[in-house]
């Protein structure tokens, strides 16, 4: 193994190795996530996709915000930036524009990306910044103890909606689609293989790519919403999900008692923000030369 693989870590015995060990900061284990959480499987799918596509580990950047998912950037052995609440996307934009050869990923939660960071999300979609954004949507604020999120289904209970939620949640694929993202998909953390394929597809593209990953939070969401057992939410996902590639994103809102539509919804060609910037530079250069 080269230093890239171990980075000075104590070599582990073969039986101690996790299949994805080369991507992990093993010395930081155990992680903080609860049993049944969907963040781990999502990251597993992501690193497998990075392997599949063959991206050099030294070129991978992982930017996260605040919340349970925010901690992920500190567990993987890549350049990891654990930033402020909601600001992962603009922080990542700064990195990507300065070093366009890097593979810059934002992996964060629904509270981070769609509540406090909602404005940054839509504007990054609109600009078509070269980022892969993966949102683990668990319908709740997990780390702070189970408060209402912008993704909590109507009628659901949280610590701040003790009588049930009256606010309609965001349909995040529709929001991304309408704001201009070039790739929009939704999977769940139990559809690991399909999620991995979708991430690999997105990694091969340029521009703003968005994948929503529905992710169980048995402790802070399931417990208050009759999905108490550790695998209840996974069962709900499994039993209710319908795969419909290319589905109209206006029709993929998540509602209790209705099918959960999964799939790769949007794939479009558009010059990325960096591409536009370079075009602009050329235009300015030509104008300056014409003046001479």
């Amino acid at each position, binding site marked *: 193994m080269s230093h890239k693989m171990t980075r000075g870590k104590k070599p582990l015995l073969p039986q101690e190795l996790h299949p994805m060990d080369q991507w992990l900061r093993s010395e930081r284990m155990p992680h903080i996530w609860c049993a049944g959480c969907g963040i781990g499987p999502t990251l597993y799918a992501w690193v497998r996709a990075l392997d599949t596509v063959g991206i050099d580990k*030294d070129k991978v950047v992982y930017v996260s915000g605040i919340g349970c998912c925010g901690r992920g950037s500190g567990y993987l052995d890549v350049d990891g930036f654990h*930033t402020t609440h909601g600001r992962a996307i603009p922080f990542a934009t700064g990195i990507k524009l300065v070093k366009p050869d890097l593979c810059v990923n934002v992996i964060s939660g629904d509270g981070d990306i769609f509540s406090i960071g909602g404005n940054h999300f839509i504007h990054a979609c609109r600009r078509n910044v070269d980022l892969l954004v993966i949102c683990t949507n668990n319908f709740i604020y997990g780390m702070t103890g189970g408060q209402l999120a912008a993704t909590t289904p109507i009628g659901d209970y949280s610590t701040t909606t003790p009588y049930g939620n009256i606010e309609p949640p965001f349909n995040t694929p529709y929001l991304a689609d309408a704001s201009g993202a070039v790739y929009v998909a939704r999977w769940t953390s139990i559809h690991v293989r399909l999620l991995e394929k979708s991430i690999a597809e997105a990694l091969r593209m340029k521009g703003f790519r968005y994948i929503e990953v529905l992710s169980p939070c048995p402790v802070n969401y399931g417990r208050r919403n009759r999905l108490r057992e550790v695998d209840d939410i996974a069962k709900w996902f499994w039993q209710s999900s319908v795969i419909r590639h290319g589905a109209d994103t206006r029709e993929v809102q998540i509602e209790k008692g209705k099918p959960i539509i999964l799939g790769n919804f949007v794939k479009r060609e558009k010059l990325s923000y960096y591409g536009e910037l370079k075009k602009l530079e050329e235009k300015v250069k030509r104008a300056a030369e014409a003046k001479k």
Partner: protein
Amino acid sequence: MGKTVLTGKHFWYGNIAIAEGAIAAGCRFFGGYPITPASEIAEHISKRFPEIGGIFVQFEDELASMAAILGASWAGAKSMTATSGPGLSLMMENLGLGVMMEVPTVVVNIQRGGPSTGLPTLTAQGDVMQAKWGSHGPYEIIALSPDSPQEAFDLTIRCFNLAEKYRVPVILLASETVGHSAGKVIVPPENEIELIDRKKPTVPPEEYLPYKPDEDLIPPMAYAGEGYAICTTGLTHNEKGYPDVSAETQEKLVRRLNDKIRKHMEEIVDVEEENMEDAKIAVVSYGQVSRPVKRAVKMAREDGIKVGSIKLITIWPFAENVIRKWAKQVELFIVPELNYGQIYLEVKREVAGNSETVLVPRMGGKLITPQEIYREIKKVSKK
């Protein structure tokens, strides 16, 4: 490629001088949001950057702007933003992150009257305390205050150098009058501009600890994409950059973040003293107010009053040793400023009852004239 350093003599607005100072300092990433009276900086950069290969992005707000310039700095660029009070309020969140992650970057504040939306088009100096501790938690910051377009140019370069050297966000605390008044700016030849770049790691990745400081308390900085697997967080962290939310780690980290500034006060602090040798009265001022002070002191000296001037170029860290030294000789300090007493309190604290301290406040909107300061000097000289 266009010219980066516009060597020569210019007639520039302060805001243009700041933009050109940044370019001369090597800034190649600007993230900002329009705000009066700072917008000309973004406008000028948006015109200049495509000529010289810099990246200008007008973000959706100041929160994003500040976050993006931190990211850009981690990717290896010298980065900056420019705003005014209301924008600085929003930037405080990620300014704190910049302090915690130790990110070199420059934040320009063209001060206007506050609180709140206040006087959007008129001058003030009300953000002095916000510049120091506007973000939460115990930290030290560096802030410089220019009084003219020339100083705006020079100090912008110094802001970048200090940011790079100490791995901190540095604030250029200018004001509307400085940003919007035109004056002569001499840009030296490129090879005469001294530039400092951040320290880079000298050890291979497997030995690199991103938050292990050298003797100067400043850790070398690897960039994203160099194979160092940087781990960084706004959480309290150990030398590896890993979150470690213990009182012991907090104590060690926060002390160092403060001490890397406090222990380099001598190098950072810059003041201009005039007529201080025999002064019994000293006028302490900064930024645009220093200019009428200069004239007022001259007028009072013509009357035979033993008055001198201490102009603070560095606002933070505060020039405490300078004030303490002069407090042994000076009987009375006058502090004129465009607020209701901010630097005044710092001066008073350092004078510690050894001399008298008088505040000449103006809430902003218009300058304090030389005559007003002169009258104040006259009045106290009769005491």
